């Protein structure tokens, strides 16, 4: 309908969702293992070869755990919230093109779809903390709501430079526009702001203030256990994967090889995979490297530094593109 590409690519939905969930399971293990190496300790290395099966062991444990719902909270919302988090994050993957022709759907609002879905994830966090009826959970979800709504603003504005260069919201066309020059070169500022905003949106460390364990126990998911907890965590890891994919697509040329490494025998999806894995590792390394800021520092960084910078970036990009290509 309306010229959208509806064809066999819908077959991709099931392997994509399943693959991501299994990937998340291994990513949790891999993160702990890599953090262990970087911090000069072992990490989980008992289950399977080098601990590869740790994710499965964790999964079995979470499945068989007592699934406790706080009797003092709001039952319906409590059960609903992890589903909202995981579902809205998984929906982002629908618009991500992995290679030429390999995507579920190529819409002309793909980038806005990403923003819309990541903004719906706020409800999961907000309602989860609210339904727990626990002061730490409530504080955590209030922080999460303010943080995510704030950083959504810069996230949306920081990619406008890319949109100005490419002239479209479609991710496939944005990647095609980077055939000769990756947008990291003209849009370095946009990339830095998008990366910071992506960290805050997925509330990964160092911006995990909604779940800062030394002040708020576990923040908004204090009362969650068993598979509901697994879904909350899954949402966070899928957000990390999706943000890495978006960084690759928007600023690092998606499936295009670097100009000096343009070999024919490397398939485009391999380049995409390499870049995404690289950015996932940057996310993990940041967790090991940077301490958590104070909450008011996070907010003033956003409104006082990042907002003016993004606006200047949009103005400058518009001016340069307008001068070079004509208004």
């Amino acid at each position, binding site marked *: *309908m*309306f*010229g959208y590409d509806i064809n066999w690519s819908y077959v991709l939905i099931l392997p994509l969702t399943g693959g991501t969930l299994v990937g998340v399971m291994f990513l949790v293990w891999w993160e702990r293992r890599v953090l262990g190496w970087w911090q000069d300790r072992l990490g989980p290395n008992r289950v399977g070869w080098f601990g590869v099966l740790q994710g499965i062991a964790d999964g079995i444990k979470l499945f068989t755990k007592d699934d406790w719902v706080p009797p003092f909270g*709001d039952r319906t*919302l409590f059960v609903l919230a992890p589903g909202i988090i995981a579902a809205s994050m998984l929906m982002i993957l629908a618009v991500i093109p992995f290679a030429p022709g390999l995507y579920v759907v190529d*819409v*002309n*609002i793909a980038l*806005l*779809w990403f*923003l*819309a879905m990541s*903004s*719906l994830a*706020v*409800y999961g966090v*907000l*309602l989860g903390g*609210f339904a727990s009826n626990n002061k730490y959970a*409530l504080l955590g*979800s*209030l922080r999460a*709501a*303010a943080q995510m*709504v704030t950083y*959504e603003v810069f996230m*949306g504005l920081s990619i406008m430079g890319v949109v100005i260069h490419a002239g*479209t*919201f479609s991710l496939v066309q944005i990647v095609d526009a980077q055939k000769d020059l990756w947008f990291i070169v003209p849009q370095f500022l946009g990339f830095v702001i998008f990366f910071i905003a992506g960290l805050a949106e997925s509330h990964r460390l160092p911006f995990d203030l909604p779940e800062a364990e030394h002040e708020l126990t576990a923040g908004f998911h204090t009362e969650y256990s068993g598979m509901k907890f697994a879904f909350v965590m899954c949402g966070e890891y899928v957000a990390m994967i999706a943000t890495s994919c978006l960084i690759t697509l928007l600023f690092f040329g998606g499936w295009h090889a670097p100009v000096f490494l343009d070999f024919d025998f490397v398939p485009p999806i391999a380049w995409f995979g390499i870049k995404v894995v690289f950015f996932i590792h940057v996310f993990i390394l940041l967790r090991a490297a940077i301490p958590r800021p104070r909450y008011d520092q996070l907010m003033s960084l956003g409104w006082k530094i990042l907002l003016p910078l993004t606006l200047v970036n949009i103005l400058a990009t518009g001016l340069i593109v307008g001068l070079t290509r004509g208004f």
Partner: protein
Amino acid sequence: MTLDLVLFWIPGAVAIGATVAVITRKNASRALIYLVVSLLAVAVIFFMLGAPFAAALEVVVYAGAIVVLFLFVVMMLNLGRSSVMRESRWLQPGMWIGPFILVAILAVVFAYAFASVDGVDTKGEMVGPRAVGEALFGEGPYLLAVELAGFLLLAALVGAYHLGRRYLEERRELS
């Protein structure tokens, strides 16, 4: 009935049901969640009508930011059982008379308008992001309205900043 029509009726019914629930729910947070559902259903309808950009903005701006702030305030106030009681006192049957008269007037106007567009094809063409941008910022009729709205928002921003700064100064003097 064609598939298009079915795909229109489903979100339409969801939107109406959710909106009725927004009004009749006594718990403020539940009412807001129904409001989100209603906005999402309307976004789906926009998408079906060929306005994907409006649909996306409906989710990003209304569902993703404005209602989040409503919910944020409701959570901050932590409205408990007393507010539910007060709400049920307000939602007496007699309260519906005024809204009913207004809706009846609207229904008459709507019926008249609906009869006059009979036979007109309401299925518009696809309006993508580029078309919206050109209508708003190009040589369309909306440029002045966009600028005025921007002016109003800037004034609101400056006002909010002023109020916030005065509050902070007062607090500084107290401490």
